[in-house]
């Protein structure tokens, strides 16, 4: 069997998802042995411009050049997998989308509005077709490994479409929300084994939302009844999924 040709690319983000792949210390050598890695800028200076069976793409798109490059990758790849919250939802850098314009941000940080032509941080799917999304900030390495084996086997991996609460209960955690902290677990897709609540920390929603399923309005109502300030709720919802239409609309 021919090894699948794989490219791993990064756009605007923290490189954390590529790093998570490198963090598969025990499996890395087997994994790269099973794949024909054609491009992995973070780890290798060998860049083969090629066709890819699978392209894993990290980061959000913020410049015209990135958009162009993403389109090139798309054209050369059979499957395009978005890895990480930036690629899936736009990342933390999108948290003020629709509130503070890019040029204002530019002025605030660089003191001038036209330093660069820049887009509002958007997920990859705003520009190209995305075949599969591995969410998370950063991705879960086990989930990546499982997705990679599925792809190797020829299947599209199975996406997680249930909330963090499920994993919390499977791990027998108490409910952080009921204990008085604003936890986004009920609207955030699981897959992280409820990392934060398991440590007693509220979920900040680093895996985005469950598209078409997360009950944003109900959650806002529940948070309000629990006594959280409106502005606080809004800021929290916007942290990782500001581009989700229902959250973008929250006043």
């Amino acid at each position, binding site marked *: 069997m021919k090894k699948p040709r794989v490219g791993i690319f990064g756009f605007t983000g923290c490189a954390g998802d590529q790093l998570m792949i490198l963090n598969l210390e025990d499996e890395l050598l087997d994994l790269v042995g099973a794949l024909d890695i054609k491009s992995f800028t973070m780890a290798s200076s060998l860049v083969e411009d090629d066709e890819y069976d699978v392209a894993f793409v990290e980061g959000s798109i913020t410049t015209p050049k990135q958009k162009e490059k993403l389109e090139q990758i798309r054209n050369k790849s059979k499957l395009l997998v978005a890895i990480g919250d930036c690629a899936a939802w736009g990342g933390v850098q999108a948290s003020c989308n629709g509130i503070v314009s890019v040029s204002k941000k530019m002025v605030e940080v660089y003191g001038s509005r036209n330093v660069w032509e820049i887009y509002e941080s958007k997920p990859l799917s705003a520009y190209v077709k995305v075949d599969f999304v591995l969410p998370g900030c950063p991705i879960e390495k086990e989930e990546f490994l499982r997705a990679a084996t599925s792809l190797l086997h020829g299947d599209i991996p199975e996406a997680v479409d249930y909330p963090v609460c499920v994993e919390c209960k499977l791990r027998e955690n108490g409910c952080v929300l009921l204990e008085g902290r604003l936890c986004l677990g009920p609207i955030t897709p699981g897959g992280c084994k409820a990392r934060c609540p398991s440590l007693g920390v509220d979920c900040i929603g680093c895996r985005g939302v469950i598209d078409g399923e997360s*009950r944003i309005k109900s959650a806002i109502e529940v948070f309000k009844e629990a006594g959280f300030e409106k502005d606080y709720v809004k800021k929290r919802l916007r942290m990782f999924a500001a581009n989700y239409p229902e959250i973008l609309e929250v006043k």
Partner: protein
Amino acid sequence: MAKADLPKLFRTLAKYGPVVAPVRVGENVVFREVTSLEEVELEYTRSLTPPKKLFLGPQEEILKFDGEKYEEVFEDGKAVLFGVHACDINGLLKLDEIYLDSPQDEYYARRRENVMIVGMSCVPDERCFCTSTGSSYAYGGFDLFLHDIGREYVVRVRTERGYEFTKDGYFKRMEEKDFLAFKKAEEKKVRSIKRKVDLAGIGDLIDVTPKSLWEELTAKCLACGSCNLVCPTCQCYDVLDVLELDIRSGSRIRRWDSCMLKRHALVAGGGNFRPTVVERTANRLSCKVGGEIRCVGCGRCTVYCPAKIDLVEMLERIRVGA
């Protein structure tokens, strides 16, 4: 049996196998393996997840495959499940109806066989309504049951296996006054359970409840599934295969599932028979109290619902129709 002799009983039980008992972890009580009686929370209201987890694991491997054949994975082991309340024992009896029905679920059946159950009287709170579901008392489904009557326990024996443990000298024969004390303690417990819900014919009322009321009842529901995952009688499980890097071998895993989740009634092509929380809640309630009563009144789904949706309140509103 005198309360002071409980450590003795605990030690003899421990000879049967590892003891799993309620333990306090932060604000919650969970069933964990313990090595001494000191770790055990003897007086508790309800555990976070029900003790059914010993028989139907939250997440368990059921088989392995290697590209050629499928092999069962089953860890054989005896254990003692200590300190189970009547509601949860009744919950297990409800699960028995499903999982021991032919063809029986081998994993469940064998564990049910292997695990000895020691019941214990409970400390009800205002969310318990087991008297309405007929599950405040366990008529069977355990080996031993310890009823707290003050300074002593009345021990009910239900199996020969349980009987073996009551042969030691510190077990006394029941006398008339013990029967009276036992009866009084049970009456007191029943009286202390204030919460009541009328379930007669509720299934048909669920059936005719208009969508508008469902929408109101479920407005805050987050579709998070917690209510199902803490329920002692929820039986649903999901299955997934995990493949190794050699893309030949791997294992099949099943884990608790919830009918409040999107995928529960989703079929190929994206069709969903229960697309919103309305249909899902109607299904959940039907399943619990629609036909035969499968709710044991433990109150968990209410206590652990992040949206504080109250099952009993819902049922009451369904009864009055508004």
